[in-house]
């Protein structure tokens, strides 16, 4: 047999295992030339040669009223990450997509300035010149000194992989919403604090002015007022007016939480955030207001100063930093959350998706998962259980984790966002329609919840959607034109989406520059959708700039709202179901519409907008494919479906390692033991993402190492099978050796076979130098024992031989194993020394899947009641045990010692299940009186 070299050999593995598998070198003529870009650290399938940054990062930008869009900070804060990527330019890009004129001031008909609680918007944006795609989350913070009291900010997740942004949109949205919420909560507090100070100032000023006026009055008894006095009086009046205004503002900002949290049962994220800082004791949203008030009241006493009545909005004034705008505490927390986000979305999309699927599946087997799965993940389970009520941080945003997520896929793309993608002229024309659309979207979204809520939403301010129209106009990217008729777009629905399209996209590289992709999405105003809900609401549409004929960017999909639909929406909840399906239809429609532009010439190129450039047309086809691809995925009604669709990628190797940072970061950085826990670990039990727990045993690196070493063990030792059998059947395996590193390495490797007891980690003791005790066998199932050449070791060895009936002993120095006989078939499959698996991580996965299968068997055995309960009262217990035996043998196909493995696992399951609530205690030490044999190499 000719041994085929691993593909791996040519893909510059991120990190070679400490001992790469040695194989004979191939003759020169047979070897495949290396990927030309390998030297740059890219993998051959990396399609993002255009990107100027090395891996995904998060950028926070501000639209400063003084200097315009400017980048504030990046996460990670490392210039190496974004490299030559032009942050300023990109800030300009992302800030210019801003969606709303967060109108504050004196609206007509209002006596006082009114704060508009503007909702965040979520936008996906691409720039192929930079090779960058971004999820952009806009938010507005209040600043008393800013124009209109608002400061627009945005947080962007920038990646070179468009698919990643698209597919992870919901998760990104959810995570960024958390960060945003945190910022905004802090900001409200800070803003209210500002207002109070200002009020005190004003009050003081008023008093001073008043006194002065009085003095003047007294001093002046001529009966007429001097101009000075009049001026003073005017000033006083203006101060008083200002006081009223500010009081009103304060009232507004304080009323926010209540208003906001009406729907708090959906997702009281805000209350969660308020709890987080230690200074906040409020536990529920109901308390928040009082907490807020307390908070403000408790501020260190402020000495008021005399101020000018007219508020100054001078431009030379230094604006507050983001940290000042939001309470420092909240700011830090936000940064922590963002770091968490950055961590969470590291790595290749493929990796993210599979791990999401993995976690979702794992959740379904929570009864058995404690046996072999990573404990952190398992340990997470209770937290998730509470999620719907207490709203734990939404850690990895796996699909269908919470009710909100379940609902999302139904409404993948809001109709409102379609509107926004329509170029400006149209929007203006259809301003009303836009409102309707947003409303419809809101209705659609909320329909699954409470009909009553809908009414509330509908009654709310519609301003947001208006402004969204405006912001598009500002954008002005796509020019007049493209008035796709609705019928046209609808007809395109029928266009089948062939997998080939998807694939063709996959191969296409975005080497173009000079074009850019505009992906817009605006949310309807907060008034329409409670932001908690909205957090995960996929309001974005990826509208990669369409490269229509002649490069006219604006290919526009008509929102696909036909009047009848609107009518339905307005009819109320009855039509909601159909609307939902319509929404997904729209997506299909959109997808289909991609092909349409070819038939809609006549768009004009507009280069006047510096931000948006127009794509060369020659790439039209491919990019459309690109788009179709996205649409397909998003159009699937649920995450599961999109996962199903995924294998198409898997077939295509080019998708395995797409992004430049690829799995490298995910494998290495995740597991960087010194700085990070695994991304999962960091999320598991901590409410505050800022605290990164020490690297858990579940880190990728650990898995890989363990897998690799286990593989080595299997190849090296012919008696690996009985050793593994010992571990699986709960017989403590003692690894005896002089060299600590060796022993530890092997213990770590073998620990992947050790069934866990519960949440508290696997019963593995890596290194022990004291003599063994009976309790050790009860506690540990795998022990690394030091062999010392001293009299002390005699006692250790004596203990070992004394307790030999409870242990299998693997002597690393002498290469012997003393343990019971194993004749089953399970372990050979699990640990085949002729396996073709070469890589540690692959082998680890292999083991995991085999063990999952095994635990499924154990589950079946444990929970089949007819096996264990007497069929009738008088049945002899022997019958039950014979039933068990035949079940194990015939139904589960277990032979010989495999039966014992399953029985042992079943024992653990029983114990775990019956003691679940009480916490896991150590199970009793179970053993068999069976003879042991000595194996030698």
């Amino acid at each position, binding site marked *: 047999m000719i041994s085929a070299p691993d593909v791996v050999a040519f893909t510059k593995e991120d990190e070679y295992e400490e001992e790469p598998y040695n194989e004979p070198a191939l003759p020169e003529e047979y070897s495949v030339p290396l990927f030309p870009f390998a030297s740059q650290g890219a993998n051959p399938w990396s399609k993002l040669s255009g990107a100027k940054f090395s891996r995904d990062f998060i950028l926070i930008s501000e639209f400063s009223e003084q200097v315009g869009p400017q980048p504030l900070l990046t996460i990670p804060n490392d210039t190496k990450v974004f490299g030559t990527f032009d942050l300023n330019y990109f800030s300009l890009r992302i800030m210019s997509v801003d969606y709303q004129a967060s109108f504050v001031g004196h609206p007509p008909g209002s006596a006082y300035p009114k704060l508009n609680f503007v909702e965040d918007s979520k936008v996906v944006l691409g720039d192929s010149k930079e090779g960058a795609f971004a999820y952009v989350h806009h938010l507005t913070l209040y600043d008393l000194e800013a124009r209109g009291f608002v400061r627009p900010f945005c947080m962007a997740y920038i990646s070179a992989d468009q698919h990643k942004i698209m597919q992870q949109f919901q998760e990104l949205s959810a995570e960024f919403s958390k960060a945003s919420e945190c910022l905004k909560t802090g900001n409200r507090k800070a803003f209210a604090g500002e207002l109070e100070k200002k009020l005190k100032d004003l009050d003081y000023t008023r008093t001073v002015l008043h006194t002065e006026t009085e003095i003047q009055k007294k001093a002046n008894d001529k009966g007429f007022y001097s101009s000075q006095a009049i001026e003073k009086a005017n000033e006083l009046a203006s101060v008083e007016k200002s006081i009223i205004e500010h009081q009103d503002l304060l009232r507004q900002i304080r009323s926010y939480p209540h208003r906001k949290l009406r729907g708090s049962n959906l997702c009281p994220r805000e209350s969660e955030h308020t709890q987080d800082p230690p200074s906040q004791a409020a536990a529920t949203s109901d308390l928040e207001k009082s907490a807020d008030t307390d908070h403000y009241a408790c501020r260190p006493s402020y000495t008021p100063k005399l101020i000018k009545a007219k508020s100054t909005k001078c431009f030379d004034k230094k604006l507050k930093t983001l940290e000042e705008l939001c309470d420092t505490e909240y700011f830090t927390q936000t940064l922590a959350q963002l770091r968490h986000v950055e961590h969470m979305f590291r790595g290749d999309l493929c990796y993210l998706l599979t791990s999401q699927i993995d976690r979702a599946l794992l959740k379904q087997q929570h009864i058995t998962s404690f046996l072999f799965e990573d404990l952190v993940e398992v340990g997470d389970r209770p937290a998730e259980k509470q999620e719907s009520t207490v709203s734990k941080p939404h850690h990895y945003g796996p699909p269908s984790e919470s009710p909100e997520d379940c609902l999302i896929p139904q409404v993948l793309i809001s109709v409102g966002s379609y509107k926004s993608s329509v170029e400006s002229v149209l929007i203006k024309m259809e301003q009303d329609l836009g409102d309707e659309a947003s409303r419809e979207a809101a209705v659609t979204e909320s329909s699954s919840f409470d009909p009553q809520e809908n009414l509330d939403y509908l009654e709310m301010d519609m301003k947001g959607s208006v402004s969204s129209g405006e912001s598009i106009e500002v954008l002005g990217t796509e020019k007049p034109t493209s008035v796709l008729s609705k019928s046209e777009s609808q007809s395109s629905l029928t266009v089948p989406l062939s997998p080939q399209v998807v694939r063709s996209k996959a191969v296409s590289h975005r080497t173009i520059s000079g074009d850019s992709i505009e992906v817009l999405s605006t949310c309807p105003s907060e008034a329409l959708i409670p932001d908690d809900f909205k957090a995960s609401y996929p309001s974005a549409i990826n509208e990669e700039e369409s490269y229509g004929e002649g490069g006219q960017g604006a290919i526009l999909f008509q929102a696909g709202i036909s009047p009848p639909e609107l009518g339905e929406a307005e009819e109320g909840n009855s039509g909601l179901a159909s609307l939902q399906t319509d929404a997904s239809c729209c997506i299909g429609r959109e997808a289909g519409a991609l092909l349409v532009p070819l038939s809609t010439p006549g768009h004009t190129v507009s280069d006047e907008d510096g931000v948006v450039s127009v794509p060369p047309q020659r790439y039209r086809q491919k990019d459309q494919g690109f788009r179709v691809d996205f649409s397909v995925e998003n159009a699937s009604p649920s995450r599961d479906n999109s996962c199903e669709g995924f294998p198409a990628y898997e077939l295509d190797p080019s998708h395995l390692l797409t992004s430049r940072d690829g799995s490298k970061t995910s494998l290495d950085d995740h597991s960087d033991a010194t700085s990070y826990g695994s991304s999962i670990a960091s999320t598991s039990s901590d409410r505050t993402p800022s605290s990164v727990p020490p690297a858990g045993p579940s880190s990728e690196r650990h898995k890989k190492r363990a897998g690799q070493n286990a593989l080595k063990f299997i190849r090296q030792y012919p008696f690996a099978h009985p050793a593994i059998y010992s571990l699986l059947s709960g017989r403590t395996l003692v690894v005896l050796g002089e060299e600590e590193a060796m022993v530890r390495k092997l213990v770590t490797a073998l620990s992947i076979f050790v069934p866990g007891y519960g949440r508290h980690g696997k019963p593995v003791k890596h290194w022990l130098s004291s003599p063994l*005790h*009976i*309790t050790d066998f*009860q506690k540990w199932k795998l022990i690394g024992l030091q062999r010392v050449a001293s009299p002390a070791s005699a006692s250790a060895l004596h*203990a070992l031989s*004394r*307790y*030999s*009936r409870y242990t299998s002993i693997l002597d690393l120095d002498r290469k012997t194993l003393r343990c019971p006989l194993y004749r089953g078939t399970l372990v050979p499959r699990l640990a085949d020394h002729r396996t073709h698996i070469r890589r540690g991580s692959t082998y680890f996965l292999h083991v995991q899947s085999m063990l999952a299968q095994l635990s499924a068997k154990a589950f079946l055995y*444990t*929970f089949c*009641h*007819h096996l*264990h*309960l007497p*069929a009738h009262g008088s049945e002899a*217990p022997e019958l039950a045990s014979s039933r068990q035996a035949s079940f194990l043998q015939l139904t589960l196909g277990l032979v010989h010692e495999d039966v014992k493995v399953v*029985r042992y696992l079943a*024992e653990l399951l*029983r*114990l775990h*299940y*019956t003691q679940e609530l009480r916490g896991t205690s150590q199970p*009793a*030490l*179970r*053993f*068999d*009186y*069976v*003879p*042991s044999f000595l194996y030698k190499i």
Partner: protein
Amino acid sequence: KSPLQTIGEEQTQNPYTELLVLKAHHDIVRYLTGEKLLEFSGHTQKITAIITLPCLETCEEKNQLILTASADRTEWDCDTGRQVQKVSCFQSTVKCLAVLQRLDVWLSGGNDLCVWNRKLDLLCKTSHLFDTGISALIEIPKNCVVAAVGKELIIFRLVAPTEGSLGWDILEVKRLLDHQDNILSLLNVNDVSFVSGSHVGELIVWDTLGWTVQACERNFWDPSPQLDAQQEIKLCQKPNDVSIRHLTWDEENVFVAVGRGLYVYNLQMKRVIACQKTAHDSSVLHVVRLPNRQVISCSEDGSVRIWELREKQQLSVEPVPTGFFNMWGFGRVNKQASHPVKKQQENATSCSLELIGDLIGHSSSVEMFLYFEDHGLVTCSADHLIILWKNGERESGLRSLKLFQKLEENGDLYLSV
């Protein structure tokens, strides 16, 4: 010296396949007493010397008193549920306790013998002190108690208050001087007899009524009186080797822990019917007879061994068991020892004690153990541990039942029947 009989790792008859280590003590756990479930009185004391648990069933209150005496000094804990009363008016260490249920009193033996009532009032005590102290105390009929004081057995009679006399009194009635060395164990066998064992391996069966010797077995270290006694004594230089540490009995037999060996003495035949001269590596400390003809012994060597008393069918046809024993490492000496027996007394050892399993867990001497029918075995040891030995299969079944109970409680059980 006969080598220790060993058993391999394959112990098909050993039902104890599960153990649970209880770790609560900080010192030697020496005594365990228990009733019903796993109620350890040993838990309460750290430095206990003696604990007894008499179940005093008075008509009015059925409260249980746990009397514990500790070696450190004359302290009495009287544990009524939670309450603890202390009596500390002793001049000497209390070494043993006994309860006379009929009279509703209890006695404590130290350097003197005291009689107490339930309220912990001292009723009376012996007039003189014993230098060596009372090492064991049992009740015999006619309001008498037997106290082992050194080499002597002293019989006391309790005089309960009657119309004539005012208070309690305790009178020495008789001294039995048949033992040649200190008496270590004393046991009531049945209504008519009690047994005492001494440091040099004398076992004497007494008549409870007449206080006379019914039978005497002095040569445990050698069941064949024919052999030269001198030679045997040389073999067993250590006096420990023949001291009778513990006795237990069933209807027919007295099971005697003699040094490292285990002997079965038949009361009717008045002779040893089975023996295991070196049952353990070290002194046997406690012996218990199980209902299923099994005997369990524990020893200073830290092990617990399970024996089965098997009847030998026909002693004339012998060779098979010898070969069988050889397989398990039975030594030559054992064979030698048993052959003379056969010669002399054809059916002397008509039974054999066979090792059917051992329990290894403790790292120090196993002081005592208790057997519970439904729960297995509880052993306590000088290594501060208490280990529960359970029948793994049965426990597994119980857990399974528990699982389905819980399933049912959760409403998750769907019976397909």
